[in-house]
């Protein structure tokens, strides 16, 4: 497991709890893991887990955020036209940790009480506004929404489950779709 350095708000104990829970999800699935087992794996008292994460939903959302920030962390893209590459890389990482991929995908689909479903939105907007500022509001929104949707673990889950695709095929199809979205703005970059 990677050190949870990318989530600075966490205490060492919290990082240990989330890493332990993520490990156990991979071994047992997210439904069957008790606080007692998590505490034992993290080497702390059960009441410490409760004090940090009073409910299972709290624990699950924190774990999903931790997984995104550490195990599924990605290199920052410097151009909107690099996003398809980042998407291909991300799909490979999801494919290596299928159980965790499902957990992250599901927590983002809970509405306002769940995890933020488009954590990369601000970054995509920044890149698009810098490179292709001439889009009207609806075009801009559509490009950001489509790329944000493709650059998520939901893509891996859907392509895997609905089409039985393997790692290469998923990375290929997701990258291809992102290139399709970019086709409409490819030659509209503001000259430097």
């Amino acid at each position, binding site marked *: 497991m990677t050190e949870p350095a990318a989530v600075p708000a966490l205490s060492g104990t919290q990082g240990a709890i989330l890493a332990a829970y993520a490990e156990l999800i991979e071994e047992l699935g997210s439904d069957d893991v008790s606080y007692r087992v998590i505490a034992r794996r993290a080497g702390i008292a059960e009441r410490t887990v409760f004090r940090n994460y009073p409910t299972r939903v709290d624990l699950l959302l924190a774990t999903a955020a931790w997984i995104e920030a550490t195990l599924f962390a990605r290199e920052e893209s410097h151009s909107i036209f690099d996003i398809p590459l980042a998407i291909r890389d991300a799909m490979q990482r999801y494919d290596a940790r299928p159980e965790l991929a499902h957990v992250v*995908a*599901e927590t983002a*689909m809970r509405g306002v009480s769940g995890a933020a*479903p488009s954590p990369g939105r601000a970054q995509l907007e920044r890149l698009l506004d810098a490179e292709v500022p001439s889009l009207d509001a609806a075009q801009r929104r559509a490009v950001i929404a*489509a790329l944000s949707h493709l650059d998520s673990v939901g893509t891996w889950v859907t392509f895997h489950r609905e089409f039985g*695709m393997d790692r290469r095929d998923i990375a290929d199809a997701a990258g*291809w779709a992102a290139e399709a979205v970019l086709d409409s703005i490819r030659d509209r970059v503001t000259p430097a």
Partner: protein
Amino acid sequence: MEEPVDTATAILASAAVLLRERSFDDISYRALADEVGISERTIYRQYPTRAHLLAALSNWLEQTCFPLAPFVTVSDFCAAVHERFRAFDASPAYAYVGARASAISPTLDTEQAYITRAIEAMLDVSAPTLNRRDRRRVSASLRYFSSAMFWARLRTGFDLDADEICDAFDRAVGTVLARLPHTTWAEPIAGRPGVTWAEP
């Protein structure tokens, strides 16, 4: 909704009633048992884990609340998806259950969703000469942009309403289809969405 005929369905119907006032996570097996008037044990027998319950509930809600209009052409496909997104907007609690269920690790032998098979059949007829890899890329993209996940992401992450989500969907479909040569299509696609926009 119709009168439930068996215990498994009665449980789902009661869960749907409870979903109107609380989230799926706040529906305990205890409360569900009280609502149906059966023992908690009976619910565990039908749905051993909450993931089983979520998957079954999503399937049932899909059939009863979000039926998909049949489609053969791309424009009918888009119309059917618009109708669905509007139905999601009218019953968001149910739609989120669908989005969640499609993201969890499959509990049973999950088969392909109806919409996936329908999209593949549409491409078989409309683009019979398209090579296999591009066919999969296109069907996977169309499937993913027409999903409850797309609706949920745009509603929660972008605060969009059904009309705006339909617009974003049309544009996404337009960009995907615009990647294929015009000769791909057995018949020209009338009013292919997004294409006029794709050509500045």
